[in-house]
């Protein structure tokens, strides 16, 4: 009997290790031959720990399981049980997804290279090994893939710049400093299918002529660091990376580097400084990292999901991938539904669903059962959307057109108890704490922003235009997205939820 208990951090945070131990103990006590697989997460976090058992009819799911439930699951022969969710793939949340980047996540043992290959892994890399650098870059361009870290810059164009640069050494740097609240796709991918990222980086190396790579993972992700390190050892031992990639005679090796708790290091130039052992201060552009990046050499800096999507593009072709999506947002996007959501988790789908479909149909509204008041899209630098804007289709340009951004595709649901003035204040406070200090609009502006919101909270309506003006200065005067985008949550809260700002005013006036 084969039983799956995820090793994903979200599953562990909800007791998966205890469930796994109970499964082994119970099997032993009953004299049953059980193979326990610690898979990645399927992404249905509200059902974690999600235990699966392999049957003739496919994998059957049970969740959320606690260690105390395990004996009764064995008693029921993993059949009829109050926690039974039926066939995993048939659960509506799973069945309606288009899983390309996350196709293997949750299905395989993340550290089994054999299972990885059995599920299509390494096909993309093998194909890339038969292509020229120009063909590889063209394939990525043709796929329409854009940076999934948030900026949405076309990945193929970035690769082209690095490929054309002349240098004795080039680098592939993976930005796994996933610091945005509501986002966990990078973490889930690294914990649930780390070989995909390795394969994507190796293809990037072949495409641009880079032989060395780094995955910069934030220190807040101990489980992802452990999984990536283990996967790299396995991949290197198997010759997937190293001096002779899959016996091709081409070299590409890569290593994990761990951040040290600085949000701003998710910005690519700060990340490069941090990787070099410097303060994580933003660099002015130009020069572009593509020309003068890590240690001054041409460097591809891509997000985890961008790089992890490369293998499927090479396995199935650019045209296949490009066929999904809307407008200039091609392919699929792993939505991360977070906060006060009934069905929180990761949902990969083609671009183009409306925000309302995501919030009401997929997330099922709030966990508290109260009305949804606001949805913050794109992390701490993303705008708060009210229900009035729920018809906005999920795409880069579509959200930009509503003074928002999709960022890394995280969505935080808030119910009607949320105080939007408080959230605006927090955005400024967070920026003040995490500012690298290089540019004045961010360093000073965020501190003044907190003070100005506090004035509004005390009933000083004359501070509202000051806040608006300050946001304008930060937006256009900051060096990077931290200071430049902090105005999005602040201004959206002020614009869409004026009552929260005026109610404070009225209360104080009474």
């Amino acid at each position: 009997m084969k039983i799956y208990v995820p090793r994903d951090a979200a599953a562990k945070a909800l007791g998966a290790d205890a469930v796994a131990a109970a499964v082994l103990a119970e099997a032993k006590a009953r004299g049953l031959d059980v193979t326990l697989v610690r898979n990645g997460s399927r992404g249905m976090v509200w059902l974690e720990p999600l235990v699966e058992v392999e049957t003739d009819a496919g994998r059957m799911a049970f969740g959320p399981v606690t260690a105390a439930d395990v004996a009764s699951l064995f008693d029921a022969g993993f059949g009829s049980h109050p926690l039974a969710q039926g066939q995993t793939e048939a659960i509506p949340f799973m069945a309606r997804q288009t899983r390309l980047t996350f196709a293997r996540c949750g299905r395989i043992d993340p550290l089994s290279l054999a299972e990885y290959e059995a599920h299509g892994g390494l096909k993309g890399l093998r194909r890339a090994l038969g292509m020229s650098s120009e063909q590889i870059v063209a394939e990525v361009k043709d796929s329409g893939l854009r940076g999934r870290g948030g900026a949405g810059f076309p990945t193929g164009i970035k690769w082209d710049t690095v490929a054309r640069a002349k240098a004795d050494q080039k680098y592939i740097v993976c930005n796994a400093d996933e610091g945005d609240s509501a986002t966990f796709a990078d973490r889930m991918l690294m914990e649930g299918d780390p070989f995909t990222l390795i394969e994507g980086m190796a293809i990037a190396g072949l495409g641009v002529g880079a032989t060395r790579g780094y995955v910069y993972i934030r220190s807040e992700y101990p489980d992802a660091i452990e999984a990536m390190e283990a996967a790299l050892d396995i991949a290197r031992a198997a010759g997937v990376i190293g001096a002779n990639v899959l016996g091709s005679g081409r070299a590409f090796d890569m290593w994990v580097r761990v951040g040290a708790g600085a949000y701003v290091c998710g910005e690519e130039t700060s990340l490069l400084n941090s990787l070099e052992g410097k303060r994580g201060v933003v660099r002015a552009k130009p020069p572009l990292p593509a020309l003068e990046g890590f240690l001054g050499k041409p460097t591809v800096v891509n997000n985890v999901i961008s790089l992890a999507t490369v293998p499927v593009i090479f396995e199935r072709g650019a045209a296949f991938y490009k066929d999904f999506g809307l407008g200039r947002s091609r392919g699929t996007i792993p939505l991360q539904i977070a906060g006060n959501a009934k069905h929180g988790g990761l949902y990969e789908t083609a671009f183009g669903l409306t925000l309302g479909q995501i919030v009401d149909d997929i997330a099922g509204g709030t966990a508290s059962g109260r009305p949804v008041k606001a949805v913050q899209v794109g992390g701490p630098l993303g705008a708060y959307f009210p229900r009035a804007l729920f018809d906005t289709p999920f795409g880069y340009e579509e959200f930009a057109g509503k003074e928002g951004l999709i960022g890394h595709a995280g969505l935080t649901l808030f119910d009607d108890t949320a105080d939007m003035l408080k959230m605006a204040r927090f955005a400024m406070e967070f920026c003040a704490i995490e500012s690298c200090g290089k540019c004045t609009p961010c360093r000073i502006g965020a501190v003044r922003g907190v003070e100005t919101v506090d004035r509004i909270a005390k009933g000083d309506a004359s501070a509202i235009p000051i806040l608006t003006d300050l946001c304008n200065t930060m937006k256009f005067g900051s060096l990077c997205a931290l200071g430049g985008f902090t105005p999005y949550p602040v201004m959206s809260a002020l614009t869409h939820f004026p009552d929260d700002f005026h109610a404070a005013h009225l209360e104080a006036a009474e």
Partner: protein
Amino acid sequence: MTANAVAQRTDDIVDELATLEGPLLPILHAVQHAFGFVPQEALPRIAEKLNLSRAEVHGVMSFYHDFRTEPAGRHVVKLCRAEACQAQGADALAAHAKARLGVDFHETTASGAVTLEPVFCLGLCACGPAALVDGKVVGRVDAARLDQILSEMGA
């Protein structure tokens, strides 16, 4: 540990890692792992061996939230303060933790049992409020669950 012992252990760490490309963060992590914090005595050793000024090493160490200048308590509880956890009551949880422990964020209880710290996102945004307890992830932490964790730590 004597200043000499710190210097010796630091030298060993730097010798092992100095050949990495951009070795300073891995070195600071390793020093903190060895001592539980980054002792002042370690900085001149690192600076000398990497051919940096002490100010540069201090500047890097002090930039990052992770590096401690003094030992933490016996246990470290990090509570997520980010938006997704706030949507699930993280602010009230933090207030509860501070009141129970009698400390603010970045402080250690008088008994030395627990250091309380804020963290901005653990990637557990669909099962908040989240915490990192001695390096282990915990989700859906309510006041009762937190009390249980703190009681087990003797705080």
